[in-house]
């Protein structure tokens, strides 16, 4: 194990501008050194700056996360400002640049390599802040619904509390009064007894010299003034005027435009392309053969795209050229059979003896499920602007992983990370797609062939056909019920295990369980898709439990309640959704209600969908009621917005989302054949939040996994047809309706 000889501590300093900064500094070598004065002295590197107090008494929160609509800039700034008792109207934020001023990539990497875990006892301490900084900036990225849970709880709040403690101490020292008699409120420290007061800014100089508390006291929820309130989001005004700048909107002096066509079959190489400038094209500057793709650089995107469309190019053939979606699913079945036969199947979870319990069960329920590949289809197509000059590389893009991009591009160009600068922009949707660095690498590969900045823009077709996809998969499930309909055995064999590792766990009490998986090879690139493995297992678990409820002749909601009696948070969520969804009230003919519940990323979310299936077999989701145990919702309206968003995103996938492979390539290309939810198909969504007193749960993902099963369970309730293959559009529901009407 790499020996860690560096020490982390909180550092303060006064910038030339007179602003006080509080951050985490590390000093190589000397374990006992103290920081005085500026953070970045000789031999020291600023790890991360969390906040800055300016002479005009504004507090700036420096946020190491990308904004992609989840409101993270506002929410994290609130967490810091609340602990600090800063005046919210004077709080600003900035996104921490992925830059050596804020992050020492090499050191962070060494630290991570030496110590991957976050020791529990360090949570809530200044050392914890340091660990959070490293974790956040080097490998945590913006994803996993983690910003509030980790950076907010273990970074922002502690930095804010530490800053306040230092300001209080500075005031106590200056006025020679006991610190306990002081009050901090709205960016002012006062001593009521002697009628003295001073702004944070006035005390900043003195506070910089105070030693940071090792473990600053955090507020209890009763003391919160900002956390738990829905402050207007700071990023919204610019998003209604067109002023907000996304990666797509970057304009640089002398910048040119590029677009690209990658080999349609994943992994194929360019065989032939004529890289001379086509004579019939206007404004074309360069045609580039990038081995697995062809790029055209031109005066504008449209000129580049028109030329690219007319270029003759051929790609090498690969062993996957003839593959179809059917072949892929057949391959999965064979892989599963083989893993079982050869006993190479891996164990995910085992309790009791499921095989024996199955053989003794009164009723056996068995089902096989199939899910399709899914593309992310972020609203803003992939793009990246790059400029390679003077041994340096500058990148402008909206990335969920700016530090990863920096590291990857340093490696790609064989230069030091210090020579790579990432100017992170707003993200027009991320959903996991923008944690990849493939597009950035293409932009840099193009930029290094020219001496001007280039903005690479993907067409929507490229975006659809060269995504990294949520996997297509199959799954085999089997359960046994006893005479009174209680599940006694549960066996599940699934494919592929990514993360989070617990996704295939079930929340239900079943004494004998055997959950196994195998991971066949796939030539279709995989990527994190909103809620990752939960997007698969939410559907599997919650469809199958519904099948069990039906076999047991029990109400699906009551059945779930009876099997989660050891989980008080589940019980509460189920009780509330029963009430709010009018679960027990009758519905018109051909209408149905379905429920699903799952815990993911620290939140427990249940949804009830109300659907109507008409005589043409068309499904209309009228209403979705969502109940979420958020632990504690720091920004309730933001949390609600995320629930709504995750539901619509998951609904699009459930209804019609399907990427299929034909001749080794993606068959869909744009929104006409990869259809997404539009306003006319969007249900009314009602969200209720439970603050259970648990730590804040994630918001960006946990509403996605349960919407598909809530809808298919509702379709079953309406028609008696069990949908075991997504998307729903694959199933012809006309017949079922004719039978029931």
């Amino acid at each position, binding site marked *: 194990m790499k020996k860690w000889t560096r020490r982390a501590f909180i550092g303060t300093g006064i910038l030339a501008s007179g602003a006080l900064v509080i951050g985490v500094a590390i000093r190589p070598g000397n374990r006992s050194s103290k920081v005085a004065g500026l953070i970045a002295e000789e031999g020291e590197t600023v790890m991360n700056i969390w906040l800055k107090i300016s002479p005009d008494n504004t507090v700036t929160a420096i946020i190491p996360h990308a904004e*992609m*609509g*989840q*409101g993270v800039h506002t929410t994290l700034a609130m967490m810091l400002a609340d602990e600090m008792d800063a005046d919210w109207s004077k709080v600003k934020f900035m996104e921490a640049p992925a830059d050596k001023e804020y992050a020492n990539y090499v050191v962070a990497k060494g630290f991570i390599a030496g110590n991957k875990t976050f020791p529990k006892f360090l949570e809530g301490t200044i050392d914890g802040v340091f660990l959070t900084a490293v974790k956040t900036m080097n490998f945590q990225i913006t994803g996993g619904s983690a910003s509030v849970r980790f950076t907010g709880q273990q970074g922002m709040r502690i930095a804010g509390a530490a800053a306040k403690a230092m300001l209080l101490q500075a005031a106590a020292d200056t006025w020679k009064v006991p610190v306990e008699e002081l009050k901090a409120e709205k960016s002012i420290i006062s001593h009521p007894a002697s009628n003295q007061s001073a702004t944070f800014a006035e005390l900043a100089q003195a506070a910089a010299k105070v030693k940071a508390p090792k473990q600053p006291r955090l507020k209890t929820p009763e003391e919160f003034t900002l956390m738990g309130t*829905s402050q*207007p*989001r700071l*990023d*919204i*005004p*610019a*998003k*209604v*005027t*067109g*002023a*907000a700048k*996304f990666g*797509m*909107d970057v*304009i640089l002096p002398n910048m040119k435009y590029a677009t690209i066509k990658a080999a349609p079959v994943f992994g194929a190489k360019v065989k032939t392309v004529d890289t001379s400038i086509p004579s019939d094209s*206007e*404004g074309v500057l360069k045609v580039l053969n990038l081995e697995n793709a062809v790029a055209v650089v031109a005066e*504008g*995107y*449209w*000129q580049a795209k*028109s030329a690219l469309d007319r270029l003759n190019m051929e790609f090498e053939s690969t062993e996957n050229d003839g593959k179809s979606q059917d072949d892929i699913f057949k391959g999965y079945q064979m892989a599963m059979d083989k893993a079982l036969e050869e006993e190479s199947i891996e164990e995910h979870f085992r309790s009791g003896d499921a095989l024996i319990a199955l053989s003794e069960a009164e009723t056996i329920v068995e089902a096989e499920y199939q899910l399709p590949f899914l593309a992310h*289809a*972020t*609203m*803003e*197509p992939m793009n990246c602007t790059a400029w390679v000059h003077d041994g340096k590389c500058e990148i402008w893009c909206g990335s969920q992983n700016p530090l990863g991009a920096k590291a990857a591009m340093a490696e790609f160009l064989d230069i030091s990370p210090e020579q790579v600068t990432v100017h992170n922009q*707003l*993200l*027009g*949707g*991320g*959903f996991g797609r923008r944690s990849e660095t493939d597009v950035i690498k293409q932009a840099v590969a193009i930029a290094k062939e020219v001496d001007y900045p280039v903005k690479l*823009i993907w067409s*929507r077709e490229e975006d659809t056909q060269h995504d990294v996809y949520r996997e297509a998969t199959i799954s085999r499930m089997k359960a046994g019920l006893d005479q009174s309909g209680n599940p006694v055995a549960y066996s599940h064999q699934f494919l592929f295990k990514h993360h989070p590792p617990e996704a295939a766990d079930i929340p239900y009490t079943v004494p004998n369980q055997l959950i196994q998986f195998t991971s066949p090879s796939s030539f279709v690139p995989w990527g994190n898709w909103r809620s990752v493995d939960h997007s698969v297992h939410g559907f599997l678990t919650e469809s199958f439990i519904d099948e069990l409820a039906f076999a047991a002749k029990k109400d699906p909601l009551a059945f779930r309640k009876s099997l989660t009696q050891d989980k008080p948070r589940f019980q509460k969520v189920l009780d509330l959704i029963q009430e709010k969804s009018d679960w027990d009230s009758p519905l018109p003919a051909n209408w149905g209600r379905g429920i699903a519940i799952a815990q993911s990323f620290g939140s427990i979310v249940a949804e009830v969908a109300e659907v109507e299936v008409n005589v043409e077999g068309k499904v209309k989701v009228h209403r979705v009621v969502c109940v979420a145990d958020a632990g504690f919702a720091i920004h309730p*309206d933001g949390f609600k*917005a995320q629930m*709504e*968003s*995750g*539901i*619509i*995103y998951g609904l*699009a996938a459930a209804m019609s989302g399907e990427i299929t492979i034909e001749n080794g390539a993606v068959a869909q290309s*744009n*929104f006409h054949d990869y259809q*997404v*939810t*539009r*306003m*006319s198909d*969007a249900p*009314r*969504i009602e969200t209720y939040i439970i603050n259970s007193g648990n730590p804040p749960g994630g918001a960006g993902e946990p509403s996605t996994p349960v919407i598909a099963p809530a809808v298919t369970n509702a379709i079953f309730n309406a028609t008696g047809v069990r949908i075991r293959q997504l998307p729903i559009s694959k199933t012809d529901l006309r017949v079922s309706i004719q039978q029931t009407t």
Partner: protein
Amino acid sequence: MINLTINGKEYPVEAPAGMPLLWVIREQCELTGTKFGCGIAQCGACTVHVDGQPIRSCITPASSVEGKNITTIEGIAPDENTLHIVQQAWIEEQTPQCGYCQSGQIMSAVALLNENPTPSDEEIEQAMSGNICRCGMYGRIKSAIKRASAALQASTSNPQLQ
């Protein structure tokens, strides 16, 4: 060389034949509020007004709108310090998430309310279903349109507010 009138300003631009208005607006006029989403009139991100009518600028040749009044998201506010009623409603409902689709949504909403100041739910759905929001903010977009509609009613029935 063609002359475009965008937000009341003249833009002489060099646009090759067939070049869509979208790219002229974004790259040559540097008005980046209008977005590219699909390029085939499927998503509405590129919506602008031509003589008050909403059009998809990604499939409209720039040369076809010479001499017409083009309005983009940057041009709908009455002046620099005042937002359009629809923009204001968007803020009050905290509508945008990532925000990328919102210029197009707002342009479609403004066009709808100009035509029909008190749209029903169905009319809103019909007018807005050409605009995709991958962040799924349809409920908030609908509420914001209703809020804007109410505000419009209030301002027209109260001349002092006008």
